[in-house]
């Protein structure tokens, strides 16, 4: 190096070089996170696509209790999101249920305003032969455990007591009322009752809310029956028919005759995307050709109307809870009318009918946005999109289908939009998107401004299921591992910035999750309005 050059070298320059060296060292550390790793994100057609990053959660998610069922695990547990500690759990085996499959659940708001002091929730269980669908080398049937005490379809009401940090079974609503149902349990937005349904029986029940040692009462119950035009099973729904909605009546003892497996049309539940197996004759059962697939009933946040969804019939009855009568039938199928009149055809028992020329494809999970002016409904298997309804009118007969959420990947049967939820501010809609094994399922984010996909979280986990949102508007938690004994957990991302937060361990083959509301105003963001 020449003397002249040396003289030009100043402290500042040396610092510059030193700083460059240090920056280089830092950069070297950062390069390992550049393209080619799981942090990579890309944009396609204006949609941000990001692979899920398998990392733990390093921040508190707030003072909330996260309730998750364990499906084949036979119980449910509550996790404190602030500390990520399990607060308490319950296992229905311990109460004499010889085959509980803890399926869906929903919590009522805490009467004290503080769920940590105590709250109650409703948990449906599957049962019967459903345990045989997973290839378990089990002797449960040989031992008679699927008979009297293992028929399933229990609706358990459970209390969590913050003083003792324990959960206690308060009531088996199916035993009290004779209505045994095993799928979606959805509390009313005012928290004064709940609906429960079952697609194996085609029955939905509306129940009062009991507290403590009080007993639950049936407000009303309906059964849906399909009367097909064609006698060929493969054409049962595609060739059209009539839906008959019948109001059920209790027997002389005040109980209904739908306890346990009584009334099952199918021996096994229709797993998600398994609707077409029924028309292919691959699902055993007493009367699959009459199946409507009535397996959920959720509520308009404005608290007057509910929608009872009929998976096989491509839509749902809008039920006025003030009169407990159907008002109309809304349909998601593209190419068919969106709103169908309902005709009362009998008073003994009260029976209503809707006749459809055809059913293009089954529907599945559905949800109202928090303000109640929109309803979204999955069109699965054949259409594979999401119907969006404008439900701003006070009269459901004026509710109109306005658009469809579509994505270029939603072709054929899979990947298919599944469970739905909304951000607390209503600006975004979260869809879990199912992919078949060995694929891992995704989460899509849709803007409710124009109903376009804006972000995709890919490879989230096996069978992503329902999403729960924290009521402060910060986090969304997606539970996964729905149908089988595989990996499970909760994937967490920010509702506002859509940044990934990480994964929480969560034991069980989940099919549902809910964050316990602390006040009645939070019910509409809870499992009341979306499934």
């Amino acid at each position, binding site marked *: 190096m020449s003397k002249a050059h040396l003289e030009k*070298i100043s402290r500042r320059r040396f610092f510059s070089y030193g700083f460059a060296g240090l920056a280089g060292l830092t950069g070297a550390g950062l390069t390992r996170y550049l393209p080619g790793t799981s942090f990579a994100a890309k944009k396609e057609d204006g949609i941000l696509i990001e692979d899920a990053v398998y990392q733990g959660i390093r921040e508190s998610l707030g003072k909330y209790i996260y309730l998750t069922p364990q499906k084949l695990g036979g119980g449910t547990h509550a996790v404190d999101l602030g500390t990520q500690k399990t607060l308490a759990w319950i296992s229905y085996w311990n109460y004499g249920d010889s085959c509980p499959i803890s399926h869906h659940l929903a919590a009522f708001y805490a009467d004290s305003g503080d769920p940590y002091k105590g709250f109650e929730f409703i948990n449906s269980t599957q049962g019967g032969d459903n345990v045989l669908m997973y290839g378990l080398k089990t002797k449960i049937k040989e031992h008679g455990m699927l008979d009297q005490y293992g028929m399933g379809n229990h609706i358990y009401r459970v209390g969590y007591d913050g003083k003792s940090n324990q959960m206690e079974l308060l009531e088996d609503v199916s035993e009290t009322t004779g209505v045994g149902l095993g799928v979606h349990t959805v509390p009313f937005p005012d928290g004064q009752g709940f609906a429960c349904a079952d697609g194996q029986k085609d029955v939905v029940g509306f129940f009062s809310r009991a507290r403590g040692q009080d007993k639950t009462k049936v407000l009303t119950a309906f059964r849906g029956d399909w009367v097909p035009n064609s006698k060929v099973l493969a054409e049962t729904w595609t060739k059209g028919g009539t839906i008959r909605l019948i109001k059920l009546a209790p027997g002389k003892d005040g109980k209904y005759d739908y306890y346990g497996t009584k009334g099952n049309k199918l021996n096994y539940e229709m797993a998600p995307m398994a609707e077409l197996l029924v028309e292919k004759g691959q699902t055993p059962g007493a009367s699959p050709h009459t199946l409507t697939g009535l397996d959920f009933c959720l509520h308009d946040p404005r608290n007057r109307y509910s929608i009872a969804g009929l998976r096989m019939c491509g839509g749902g009855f809008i039920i006025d809870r003030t009169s407990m009568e159907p008002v109309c039938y809304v349909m998601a199928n593209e190419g068919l009318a969106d709103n169908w009149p309902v005709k009362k055809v009998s008073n003994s028992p009260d029976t209503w009918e809707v006749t459809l020329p055809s059913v293009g494809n089954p529907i599945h999970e559905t949800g109202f946005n928090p303000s109640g002016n929109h309803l979204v409904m999955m069109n699965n298997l054949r259409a594979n999109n999401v119907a969006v309804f404008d439900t701003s009118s006070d009269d459901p007969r004026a509710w109109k289908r306005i658009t469809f959420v579509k994505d270029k990947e939603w072709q054929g049967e899979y990947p298919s939009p599944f469970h739905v939820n909304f951000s607390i501010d209503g600006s975004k809609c979260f869809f879990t998107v199912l992919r078949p094994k060995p694929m891992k399922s995704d989460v899509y984010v849709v803007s409710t401004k124009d109903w376009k996909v804006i972000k995709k979280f890919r490879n989230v986990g096996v069978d992503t299921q329902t999403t729960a949102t924290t009521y402060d508007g910060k986090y969304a938690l997606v539970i996964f591992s729905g149908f089988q004994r595989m990996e499970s957990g909760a994937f967490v991302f920010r509702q506002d910035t859509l940044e990934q937060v990480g994964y929480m361990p969560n034991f069980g083959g989940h099919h549902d999750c809910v964050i316990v509301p602390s006040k009645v105003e939070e019910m509409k963001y809870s499992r009341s309005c979306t499934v």
Partner: protein
Amino acid sequence: MSVILDAQNLSRIYPARRGSIAAVRQVSIGIQSGEFVAICGRSGSGKSTLMALLGALARPDHGTLYLEGIDLLQLSPRKLAHLRAHRIGFMLQTNSLLPGLTALDNAALPGLLAGESQHQAYSRAQKLLTRLGMGDRWDAFPNELSGGQQRRVSLARALQHEPALLLLDEPTSNLDPLAEEEILTVMRELRDERKLAILAVTHGNQLASLADRVFQMSAGQLALTEKPPAETVRSSLIQRQGPVFEKAPQGLATEEKPKPAPVGDWRGPASFFLASLLLGASLLYSTDRIIAWSQGRQLWAKQEKKRITEEIAFRQLRADVDSFEAKGDGNVHANLFLQNYDSSRRFFILGPSILVFVQTDGRWDSVPQETTEGSDTKIREVIPTKTLIPFQFQLLPAKYDELIRGYFHIRITSTMVISETKEAQGDLFERQDDYYIYLKDPRLSADEIRRLNGWVSGSVVPPWIAMPSH
């Protein structure tokens, strides 16, 4: 004037052994552009905690905080740090200048860290130092500067990224009255020129007397109070003639424009040795990085290819069982199907190679089978429409596990090798799937199956039942 900072009902509670302590309680304050607000209070009154909350260095337990309309409490840590680095200037109670850097380097540092070019960062730093009367002392290290001069460098550093809000924590503490006046005068001028919003916490009246509004903080609570009268020293200084800042000590001042100092000016051989070491290390490191970068590119390209093949295998290739037909002689005709989920990307597979098992006494017994087309040795393109792969197997075991009475529990294992090209080369990926079904024993009638399972008369008895993945 627009509102720069809007804080409502801020509270901060620290847990302590004998109960929690509310350092800040229900504090609401708004600051407009060009406004100078002072918060006075005794030591321990919560001033510094409030400053940390307002500067988004700490999170409140309650309340809301907006800076230029942005809800700071809703931002992710990364976005919050970015906003702090660009919109807020901090001057802390301690100078916290880096001792190994000159005044100029210290002042330029925020700009360099924010990604500005050296030219930009250093020119602005030099202008600020000149403005603050430190133009002559740009090359001095902090330990060569007086307390007041160090404060001025700190102030230059806080102003380097042209913030909208300047937060000052005891900016004039431990300064003599003259130095204090120097800092205050500059702050007032900057506020007027740049419409800078300034919030200062202090326990002295001198600073407060210059503010537009003065708040008193006591036991974590804030109350608007009257401005204290200016002290005598201030009025005497205002009348003082001559430049605001004292001149640099004799021998350090220069009439010429500052220029980088030559190596020969360096005082310590240790510094020279250290800098040489850094230079040598950075040169070696740069060479190493170039080689590593080149090798990394090659490695990355290979990994990317592997990733794409994996993506095809796991996200683009759909494969599942399609149909089973059991004949009375025990022959079962079956089909798998293959489908490409993304028509924009072609790919090919070798296979599938299919194995069939039946469950007996809990173990999986292999079943004789054959593919109709010898598919396991064939390379085929997987297309967007379903392609059926027929295969047959022979099944009439004397004994088998009946998870459902009258049904075999069958496992089909399919293995495929996936490639992006027809001429398999580079990274290939092997995918193996297991499918499970219940297959009706063809020797039993539908009525026998119903009887065995207790299914009601007329029940549908499927020839085979698909099972969820397990």
